[in-house]
């Protein structure tokens, strides 16, 4: 990889929002690579760290809004894992902000765009 942003997208919310963004002609940086998951709670720490190890600039986990997860706790668990990953990264001297968990709904493509662009700005500032 060469500075891509990997986004694990929950199929119920973020993936649908990404589709809606495309349909509405809303553009975002080409470096985004989406990996579809059934729930943000499927994403494990090893997945996030592996992505960074392979050369990703940043990793996003995008799940349903707080209180909206169809599996009740998936988005909550994902958030905890992302936080833990961030801690691990910081411990080894890597910016923990390069992994982030965000919440959105299927009908919120603008929020999807905002999240991607903000992470992109962050990594650009770091020179990635």
């Amino acid at each position, binding site marked *: 990889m060469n500075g891509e942003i990997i986004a694990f997208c929950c199929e119920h919310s973020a993936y649908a929002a990404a589709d809606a963004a495309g349909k509405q002609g809303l*553009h975002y940086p080409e470096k985004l690579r989406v990996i579809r998951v059934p729930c943000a709670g499927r994403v494990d720490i090893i997945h996030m760290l592996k992505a960074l190890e392979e050369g990703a600039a940043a990793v996003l986990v995008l799940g349903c809004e707080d209180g909206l997860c169809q599996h009740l706790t998936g988005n909550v668990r994902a958030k905890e894992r992302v936080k833990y990953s961030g801690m691990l990264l910081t411990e080894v001297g890597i910016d923990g902000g390069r992994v982030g968990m965000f919440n959105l709904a299927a009908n919120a493509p603008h929020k999807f765009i905002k999240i991607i662009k903000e992470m992109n700005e962050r990594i650009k500032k770091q020179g990635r």
Partner: protein
Amino acid sequence: MPVKMGIFLCNCGGSLKNIDFPKVRENLEDLEDVAFVDISHNLCLEEGEKAITSRTLTENINRVVIAACSPEFCERNFARLLEKLRLNPNLLSLANIREQCSWAHEGDVTRKALELIMMAVDKARLLQPVERKEVAVNKEALVVGGGFCGMKSSLELSQLGIRPTLVEREPTLGGKLKELEGFYGSQREAMIKAVEKEENIEILTSAEVIGVEGKIGDFRVRIRRETKEILRTFGAIVFATGYKTEITAGDFPLKLGINIISQKRLAQMLQAPTLEASPETIGFIFDLSDENSRFPTLATLNNALAVKQRWGSEVYVFCKNVKVDSEGVEKLYREAREKGVMFLKFDENPKISADDGRVRIDAGDTLLGEEIALTCDLVVAEEKLLPAEGTEGLSSVLKIRTDSQGFYQEENVHLYPVSSERKGIFFVGNCRGDLDLGRVLADISSVVAIVHELLSPGKIMVEVERVKADPQKCVACLTCIRACPHRAIQLVQIDNEKVVAEISQLACDKCGICAAICPAKAIKFEGYSDDQILAQIEAIGVS
């Protein structure tokens, strides 16, 4: 069997001009296990289906990769097509090169398209078939709670051919209808008779549910009936356990007594054949501590109108907001006012004090902009609608979350109207919150439809081993069992000594939380396994 992959690329009528399809094909054709790479104009239409069909059959492939529009819409159709072609639908891998590639970016996106397809290709190599089979389910339903909701649900279930067992903790059926004898007495009797007459309904009174194990189609329920314990199996469970109302001690400075009563007490008084002296002035008060309930408005309007009709007393209602967001209530509100019921809306809680054997209310009327002092013969106190006794206990027995007010059913819009996070367990009526009659009726019909849909075929189609805990690796640490939000995992004994986690394919909702959380990485979620996800990660940037 060695992987033999067929790749279909769709250029959406030739409109995806920022992808160089011939170049993408060139890159993919070189791959060893790829039998062919076809470019099509429109895989979603009949033409495309024919192309996929003929190629798949003639080339004898065992993996299909399709790069086209979003799987949200086309995945199900392609999966169905594969099934028709005798290829397991799980051997399909999709790349979204339209909505999330061509349409999402300016300029040439050939590189990204190729990477997305490579992600799908690398995942496809690791895909395994997932078989489906029908599992028999118990066709009987358990209805817990013999009030209006429980009785009506049982009657409607039995009309649709489901045999319900109705469990009621009191010695008789009727629930809250008993309190409203004077208003609904005849209806209550008629309903109880109908339930008793219905052969399909088994009635167990003085009985309580004390334990629920198992899963949808196969719930093992322990019922305590008087001193005995009964063990029964049901396909689905409907809780219609109702609510309670309470006058919270702190809300009223004066104690309940002869002239400060509850709505229930007033209803009883109104139903009594004669009353020595009907009160001249009655005050209703609500919204003192909890403003977010329909119940006080509904009870007040009904009782106020009954008071006007039977006693002709002066009636005053003190509240913050009249809750009219239920069918017919605005009309009831108008009728009450037309009949002379006075509504005074306060911002700050009124002061309530004793006044020579009567009750004095001092309130600021926000509409008049004045302070009002009123002395009533009778005051009907604010009653809160609360979860019924035993809700907390039962919800921990069921391992199900309650909502922020303590009622059953988590406040998650995906669960509405009547579902819970455990498949096969449902909640109807006021046990899940503050509902008016219209909403209660909709709940009942909904649960009946859903239970009928689930149980009447007598079997449910499941994916065999979509999510499976490897008995070799599982150490029975119970982590997955605790983490599964759908309570779909239990420990089973597989041989003389070993106990391992088993994921019920009936109850599993395929979220993958267990697969992520297992410390031994013993759980494989086919289609989203660790190696299938890592393969996608590793495929990025390799071009």
